């Protein structure tokens, strides 16, 4: 069994070989510090500027609105803490959702210790917020709305445009964690009225440990790291040049033919979901059937537990993930699955399959062949199912 089928692209993606090639010079012969005056320095500065231009173009942002960071978590931390502490004289209320990534949720929890009040909007059973809830939650002292573009577990896409309009009308900053969305759905920060946006290179075939915070010009935000004047004084430290170059290249490639890519993925995704439900009894699709990331499948198989499914799939060369308590490290089931109203024991049997444009029909056929007997065998072992 040498077959490898990688269905965990929401966790991270394979580095595109073209991206790697673009990075190599900056790990080898072009080793200058971008802040240096000499030719090696200038060459590196140019490389960063090119990447900044590539990112700006992909988001329809301005060159000087792009700030490189150490990844998605850092961008989320910076956006939320940076806006909160810079604007606390105006108010200390922040609105977010209860399905955000922990990089947002734990940052908000941290702010609560400093007297900020956070409203965690619930989501409907399809994983999408009710825009009326958002309107009702807005107060005089609301300074920031942070709602993720697309969810990393169930793939649901939030009504970002409507949120952006409401935020602009009320004069509240709007941040979105677009880590899962970039390169998979077209994003225009101007059209969507986004003030701050987080992204991370390794989710669109770029390198790990490098990301971006888009900060619309005029947004009042604190600096992330104090030190040398890098990133216009807002995020000091000698730049991760190779990483930044790779991010630039990756975002350009990823946003180039989103339409074609997503059409392919949506077809593959929907067919696979249909077949899973057909072939495996007591299967539930989590999240919205349509308003979801093109490559995201998230299902629950009743009566069984996710880690066991993953181990069995692993044996067959399939890499996937689960929101089961047993796989979570914290031993709590996924907060996202609980937020959409699943009981603990059903959340336990969740399986997330995240496809990429490299995923083929054949891969899905193979999955559909091996998965039903795995579920059946685990159910035979389950005390929750009677007479089977």
């Amino acid at each position, binding site marked *: 069994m040498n077959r490898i089928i990688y269905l965990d692209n929401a966790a991270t993606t394979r580095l595109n070989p073209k991206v790697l090639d673009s990075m190599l010079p900056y790990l080898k012969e072009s080793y200058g510090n971008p802040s240096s005056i000499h030719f090696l320095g200038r060459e590196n500065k140019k490389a960063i500027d090119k990447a900044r231009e590539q990112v700006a173009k992909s988001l329809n942002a301005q060159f000087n609105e792009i700030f490189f960071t150490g990844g998605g978590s850092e961008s989320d931390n910076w956006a939320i803490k940076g806006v909160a502490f810079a604007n606390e004289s105006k108010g200390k209320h922040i609105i977010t959702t209860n399905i955000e990534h922990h990089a947002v949720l734990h940052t908000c929890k941290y702010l609560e210790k400093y007297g900020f009040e956070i409203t965690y909007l619930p989501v409907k059973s399809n994983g999408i917020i009710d825009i009326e809830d958002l309107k009702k939650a807005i107060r005089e002292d609301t300074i920031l709305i942070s709602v993720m573009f697309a969810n990393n577990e169930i793939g649901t896409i939030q009504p970002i445009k409507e949120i952006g309009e409401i935020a602009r009308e009320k004069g509240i900053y709007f941040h979105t964690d677009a880590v899962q969305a970039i390169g998979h759905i077209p994003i225009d920060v101007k059209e969507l009225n986004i003030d701050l946006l987080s992204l991370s290179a390794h989710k669109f075939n770029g390198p790990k440990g490098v990301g971006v915070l888009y900060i619309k010009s005029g947004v009042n935000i604190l600096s992330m790291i104090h030190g040398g004047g890098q990133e216009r004084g807002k995020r000091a430290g000698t730049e991760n040049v190779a990483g930044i170059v790779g991010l630039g290249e990756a975002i350009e490639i990823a946003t180039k033919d989103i339409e074609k890519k997503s059409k392919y993925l949506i077809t593959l995704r929907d067919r696979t979901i249909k077949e899973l439900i057909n072939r495996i009894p007591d299967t539930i699709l989590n999240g919205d059937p349509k308003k979801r990331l093109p490559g995201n499948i998230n299902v629950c198989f009743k*009566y*069984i*537990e996710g*880690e*066991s499914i993953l*181990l*069995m799939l692993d*044996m067959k060369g399939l890499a996937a993930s689960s929101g*089961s*308590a*047993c*796989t979570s*490290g914290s*031993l*709590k*089931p996924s907060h996202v699955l609980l937020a959409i109203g699943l009981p*603990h*024991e059903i959340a*336990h049997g969740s399986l997330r399959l995240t496809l990429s444009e490299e995923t083929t029909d054949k891969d899905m056929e193979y999955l559909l062949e091996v998965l039903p007997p795995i579920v059946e065998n685990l159910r*035979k*072992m*389950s*005390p*929750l199912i009677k007479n089977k």
Partner: protein
Amino acid sequence: MEEYSKKVMDHFFNPRNVGVIEDADAIGEVGNPVCGDIMKMYLKIKDNVITEIKFQTFGCGAAVATSSMVTEMVKGKTLEQALEITNKNVAEALDGLPPIKMHCSNLAESAIKAAIDDYRKKNDHRK
């Protein structure tokens, strides 16, 4: 993630004594308060000795492997001997568990205890 030992994987992929005993003399069912998993043990007991045992588990790889291992460990033992088996013994017999998975082995120990409790309640001859 930390890897499971070869023995854990063996017991996970080829669990011993899975299933139900319809006319069991004792049944023990326990839930894991940590992660919400469930384990059920069915025992046949003759002359104070566990002659047959089967389990059902709703849980992770470690939970399945510890259930399987504990059934092998207690089969043919007297109730007193079975009660002496601790979760640590079970984990050791599997060549260890990742630290975060140690709690799963509690389930195996408590399921056996629960089953024997059940048996003693039903057959309290000392009265």
